[in-house]
């Protein structure tokens, strides 16, 4: 796992508009922790591997501190082999519930959005 260190959400490897990534990063961060506790660099690598682009620490860590304050994630420091140690983030029960809720809502939103985007009404004026 070697996340690129050059790109930001603004010029992500996935080339997604930065607004999209910013809006969905919270959901993706919860998803990244679903399989088990993980740490900052590994989460960034996970996003990159799945084509979501490269997220900077300055974007990810504030989100994780907000989730920690909200009780969605718990943290634990583990000693590193040679480095300064690693801070592991893990989903709490509350975080898992929130992930399921957001996942369901996202599926609904995607369905509605796709349905809307799939229909074309050329030349028709939109009236309320």
């Amino acid at each position: 796992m070697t996340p690129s260190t050059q790109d930001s959400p603004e010029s992500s490897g996935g080339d997604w508009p930065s607004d999209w990534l910013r809006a969905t990063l919270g959901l993706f961060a919860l998803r990244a922790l679903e399989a088990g506790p993980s740490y900052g660099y590994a989460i960034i690598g996970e996003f990159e591997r799945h084509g979501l682009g490269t997220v900077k620490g300055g974007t990810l860590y504030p989100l994780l501190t907000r989730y920690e304050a909200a009780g969605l994630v718990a943290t634990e420091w583990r000693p590193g082999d040679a480095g300064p140690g690693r801070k592991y983030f893990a989903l709490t029960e509350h975080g898992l519930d929130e992930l399921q809720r957001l996942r369901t809502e996202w599926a609904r939103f995607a369905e509605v959005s796709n349905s809307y985007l799939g229909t074309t009404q050329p030349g028709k004026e939109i009236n309320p």
Partner: protein
Amino acid sequence: MIATVSDKKWFDEFIVELRLRDVLGHAIGDAVASARELLADTGQSAEEAFGPARTYAASLELPRDSGPGWATRGLWPTLLGVLAFLLFVHVFVAWAQDDRFLVSPARLALLVAPAALVAFLPLYLQAAMRRPWLLGLLLLIGAVLGFLSSAVAPALPGEAWLSLDPVPWLLGSTTSMVLLSLWNTVQTLRRGNVDDITTPLPDQLPHRYRARRAFLMLTNWFFPLFSAIILGLFLLLQR
């Protein structure tokens, strides 16, 4: 990862910004260690990974001290201590020469000026904390004002606007310094290790914290100690 000079500056700024936001010491240590961890993994510079230190510090939701702010807690008593010490030095000179403390309007203005610098501190405090050179400049201005107020001291009682007995002022300034030091000591003891920036992993030795605490206690008593040294030297030279 080798810490660069710019990274060191970034982390220094980061810690100051978190302090200004009254983030608890252990949370500052945690945030710093987290940032270092990512930099070690990615090889990025701190600015590259996290952006400006001030913006990054503002974006983190970290546990903060719910009590009085750091300025109320530590800064005001210290600055009042500075003023008491300046007054002590001025009246001490008059007392040592067995003279009265003579005040002309010019001298009074120069004595009041440092107090005004302290009184208006809330207007520029954060700017001063973020720019160490500004703090240095303020200290320099204070020292120059102190020197000038001595330089313009009236030579004769007839030239003075006020002629004061130095003893009550000497006792008053000394008592103020001792009371402020006591206040700071009580605050230091009451807060325990809340302000200590601790690493999340126990790799720091307890004696480091003990040494830091001892140093903090010493700084609480800096002005009374320095005043005692001045008095001691004077009495020694009198022999």
